[in-house]
């Protein structure tokens, strides 16, 4: 497959008390149009990703909002797949192009999470679990990932310090990203001494609650060439599912959906993991990055924490992981996150990342996860030769 990414932008992620859901979405959509050199009337269909606005802003029907921002009357649809909403919206945009019904589409994502108190934001995120069973007993997202973490530490014998190094590395990258929620380096001691969220995960193992929006413009390769905006293409887009409830799995330390989506993506792109120069993985928790790197095929099971401790995943290491700072440091405005990952890959493949530029970046992979490994999407992007 070959789909051109002709425009890409994201807002800075953070706590934006002076900006609304609509403000953030408008900011990202208009900046992406500008990046593509297009006018609103050039867009033929919109897919907008969001998870929590119904619960946190009392606002659904974001499809209409996204089109309204541009003042156009084209088809516009909201896509939801918990934290993977953005990645699923990209897949919907690709499908519209591949069907032949559109030549250029906009894919945007937004989340406004800091208008409410933390308990309500937690509750909204909990709705990505199996709410009747796991929500009822008080399973928060950090709580579920803590269960996975303890099982993994028990199985593979990694230390708490090794795990902390994931956050240390992502903050180091985030400090280089002007759009990151957190631009401050942290130490292993900072991670271990931060307040306990769900034992053994501390505050600095967890991605923050962020506001933000991201937007990309996709087109057919022919349209991209016509307007002179070709250069970066999506060469694989895959998705897989697993049980909604964590407890209904046989395995808690690997995610079948990631493995399935990754294997298919590498097959479609006709590349192998060692061909990838940089990867944006869904590090909602430090443990999630370790498991994702193994499930995606970059490291053997049980070894990614050791590889991280050896510095193999740092910027311009063996494999650059989360050059943006990841969900941990760049931030995690849920609906925007999957699209924000693609914005980072596009800017890296274009060579626009300045001090955090990955040397000679040609192929990038993005991994987005909704719920606890229940919905996973993988995208592979390549720079045109």
């Amino acid at each position: 497959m070959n789909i051109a990414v002709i425009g890409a932008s994201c807002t800075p992620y953070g706590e934006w008390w002076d900006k609304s859901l609509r403000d953030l979405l408008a900011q990202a959509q208009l900046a992406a149009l500008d990046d593509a050199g297009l006018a609103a009337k050039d867009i033929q269909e919109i897919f907008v990703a969001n998870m929590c606005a119904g619960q946190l802003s009392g606002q659904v029907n974001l499809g209409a909002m996204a089109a309204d921002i541009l003042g156009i009357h084209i088809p516009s649809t909201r896509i939801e797949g918990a934290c993977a909403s953005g990645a699923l919206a990209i897949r919907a945009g690709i499908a519209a192009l591949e069907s032949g019904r559109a030549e250029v589409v906009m894919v945007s994502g937004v989340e406004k999470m800091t208008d409410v108190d933390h308990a309500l934001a937690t509750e909204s995120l909990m709705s990505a679990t199996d709410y009747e069973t796991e929500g009822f007993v008080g399973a928060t997202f950090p709580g579920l990932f803590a269960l996975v973490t303890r099982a993994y530490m028990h199985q593979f014998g990694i230390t708490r310090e090794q795990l902390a190094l994931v956050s240390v590395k992502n903050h180091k990258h985030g400090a280089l990203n002007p759009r990151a929620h957190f631009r401050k380096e942290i130490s292993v001691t900072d991670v271990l001494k931060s307040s306990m969220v769900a034992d053994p995960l501390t505050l600095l193992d967890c991605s923050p609650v962020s506001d933000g929006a991201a937007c990309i413009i996709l087109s057919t390769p022919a349209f991209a060439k016509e307007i002179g905006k070709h250069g970066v293409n999506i060469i694989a887009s895959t998705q897989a599912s697993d049980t909604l409830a964590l407890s209904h799995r046989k395995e808690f330390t690997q995610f079948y959906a990631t493995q399935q989506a990754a294997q298919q993506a590498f097959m479609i792109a006709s590349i192998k993991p060692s061909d990838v120069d940089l990867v944006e993985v869904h590090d909602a928790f430090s443990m999630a990055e370790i498991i994702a790197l193994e499930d995606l095929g970059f490291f053997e099971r049980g070894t990614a924490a050791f590889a991280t401790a050896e510095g193999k995943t740092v910027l311009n290491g063996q494999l650059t992981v989360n050059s943006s700072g990841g969900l941990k440091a760049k931030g995690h405005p849920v609906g925007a996150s999957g699209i924000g990952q693609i914005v980072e890959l596009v800017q890296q493949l274009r060579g626009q990342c300045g001090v955090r530029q990955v040397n000679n970046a040609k192929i990038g992979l993005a991994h987005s996860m909704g719920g606890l490994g229940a919905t996973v999407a993988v995208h592979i992007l390549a720079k045109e030769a």
Partner: protein
Amino acid sequence: MMSPIEHWRLTQNRYQLEGVQCESCAKVYYPQKFLCACGSQKFSSKKLVGRGKILSFTEVFGSSRAFKNMVPYCLALIELEEGPTILTQMTDATLQELSVGQPVRSVFRRYCADGQDGLIYYGLKFVPDFNR
């Protein structure tokens, strides 16, 4: 978000670990299942005895509106004797008293309440079973 109607509908599941067993391959599920991995849709009711062992556990320090006054509380993944795994709250035990592989048994306890004058939600929690 808790609902009295939803809770009434699920009391069989929540009050007494009532699962189902596939009539074709005998696999046991909790809670109920619509389609077995073997392809069958025929299930009979199966009461689970409420004993198992801990696969993993945690202690949660921040939670939703329904649980924020209860923190910290312990959660555990339990493998039941009949085969299904469940996620539950642990009670009558501190984090330091829990371990992977530890035998546990179910007890009937209060989960949360809809404010001062709303419904109190009960369900099963698990405790360490030091006699096994």
